[in-house]
């Protein structure tokens, strides 16, 4: 069980902060998601910001794109730390679901979040 499981949202520009704010506004749950921006960062700076946001863990890292500097920083952190799964293509539905389902392991929470995020993409 990982009641202390946190989500770290890593993005280009101000997207992560805006997404975290939106999830808190929708869910009323605060203090669970932590935004990290790559603005003004070289690779080491992003990794440092990410490490600070992850803290002692466990955590799930949500990244905007499945490539690029945010993704590379997340993958380097994932390589060096256990219980730090990475979910790419972050969207609001997966984050809203995540804040209400943090009782599982980080791996299980990551798989669920990815599935929920995918289910939310539809065409009409």
């Amino acid at each position, binding site marked *: 069980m990982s009641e202390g499981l946190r989500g770290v949202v890593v993005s280009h520009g101000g997207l992560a902060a805006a997404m975290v704010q939106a999830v808190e506004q929708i869910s009323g749950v605060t203090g669970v998601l932590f935004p990290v921006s790559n603005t003004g960062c*070289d690779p080491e700076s992003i990794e440092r910001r990410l490490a600070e946001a992850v803290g002692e863990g466990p955590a799930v890292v949500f990244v905007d794109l*499945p*490539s*690029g500097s945010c993704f590379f920083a997340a993958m380097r952190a994932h*390589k060096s730390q256990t219980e730090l799964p990475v979910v790419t293509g972050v969207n609001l539905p997966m984050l809203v679901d995540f804040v209400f389902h943090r009782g599982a392991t980080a791996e299980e929470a990551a798989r669920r979040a990815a599935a929920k995020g995918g289910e939310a993409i539809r065409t009409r």
Partner: protein
Amino acid sequence: MSLVLHRIDDRLIHGQVVIGWGRPLDVGFIALVDDQVAGSDWEQDLYRMGVPPEVEVFFASVIDAARLAPEWRADPRSGIVLTADIATMVAFRQKAPPVEEVNLGGLHHKPGRSLRLPYVYLTDDEYRSLEALQASGTRVTAQDLPTTAAVPLEALA
């Protein structure tokens, strides 16, 4: 010559390089010149994830890049030479001339560096190194994306 861009960017492969420059230049390959990455299979696999399958990525140390540069220049596809720091690009220029122009695409804040542009921070020594590079015949400009104006080195003093 098929090397259409020589870029210094401490993020190496990322969206601005692959999409911002890669698409308008119709890039077919990226030559990532970095001694550390050239020695790490894991890092190479990671950077390969950042490019579409139609773009080939070559990883080379500075020494190997100097040997491979004639092949890259003879390649019928358009290519980008990418380094993470000034010293590596200067070494490549010295060992594999000519390089007509170098693009400063991203050098971010570190202790000792000062703001020159929002995406370019330099120490005084780094600026002088770029001045020497330009004096040797390689034009140096800063430009994060092709849709923005190129900034001459002199404006970064």
